[in-house]
């Protein structure tokens, strides 16, 4: 005999006047069903993108603590407005947009030169994450490859923000132009031209590093 427990309402089948309650204990029983449903959907659709979001936050803030705060804020907001998210559309894109807006409101509102690149910040940031990487299980046995990691990374970080951002969203996160355009609040043509110019700049930087270290980036 199945007993269905409706949170908030006990529907006990078959027994008219129970002397004891046969209840299947659930941890969520205090929550209304819709709320529990929403939580499950949210975990399935939104929380799964946590690593991508954190990675993105880390790159735009250049600071792990700020990145964590930003991600938390983003998920709070996303959960609150989850009912307005259109199921079946790209949830990751939706989350990234929320995060970007939070970033602008929190970190960029007072900035006088939003696109300016702070090279010292980049250097410090890179050194802090470099050590994080070392703690991971990846073994840097191949010096050439680890060098290229670092140089590519620095080359990307040295790009002006609007170029770095579209390259990140396109090449690393795999968003479409339309999604990127929405996220950066610019027309698709602008996304296209930023990608074009950003990649060109990147290429120039990489070639400089390659010359410096005697590495041929055409190999591989």
């Amino acid at each position, binding site marked *: 005999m199945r007993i269905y427990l409706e949170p908030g309402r006990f529907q006990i089948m078959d027994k008219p006047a129970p002397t004891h309650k046969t209840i299947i204990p659930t941890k969520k029983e205090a929550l209304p069903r819709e709320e529990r449903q929403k939580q499950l959907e949210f*975990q399935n659709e939104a929380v799964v993108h946590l690593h991508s979001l*954190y990675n993105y936050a880390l790159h735009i803030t250049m600071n792990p603590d700020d990145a964590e705060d930003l991600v938390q804020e983003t998920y709070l907001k996303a959960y609150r407005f989850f009912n307005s998210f259109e199921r079946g559309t790209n949830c990751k894109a939706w989350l990234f947009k929320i995060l970007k807006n939070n970033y602008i409101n929190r970190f960029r509102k007072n900035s006088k030169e939003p696109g300016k690149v702070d090279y010292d910040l980049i250097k410090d940031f890179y050194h802090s994450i470099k050590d994080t990487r070392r703690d991971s299980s990846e073994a840097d046995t191949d010096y050439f490859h680890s060098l290229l*990691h670092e140089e*590519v990374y620095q080359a990307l970080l040295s790009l002006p923000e609007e170029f770095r951002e579209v390259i990140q969203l396109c090449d690393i996160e795999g968003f479409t132009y339309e999604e990127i355009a929405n996220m950066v609040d610019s027309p698709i043509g602008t996304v296209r031209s930023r990608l*074009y110019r950003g990649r060109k700049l990147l290429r120039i930087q990489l070639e400089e590093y390659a010359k410096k270290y005697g590495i041929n980036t055409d190999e591989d």
Partner: protein
Amino acid sequence: MNCKTARVLMSAAVDGEISFTEEKGFLSHISECKECLEEFDDAKKTKLIIKERIIRFKAPQALIDSIMQLTDFNTRETEETLLYE
């Protein structure tokens, strides 16, 4: 198609965000224009380098835990949350 137009379409060609007719014109141009062909190859290589070489960072466990808690308002234990199932 001239070089100017080809350059406008170049990143879209790299990313597959180009229409069929645009692509036709683009490919026809680069079959005749050495400079644009070289630029196109460079752009594709650059994209590949980024895709392969950039490290992505995972969220620290503390952050994972706190996000899971955000959406688990009524539970104290977290073993039954979906990500761990």
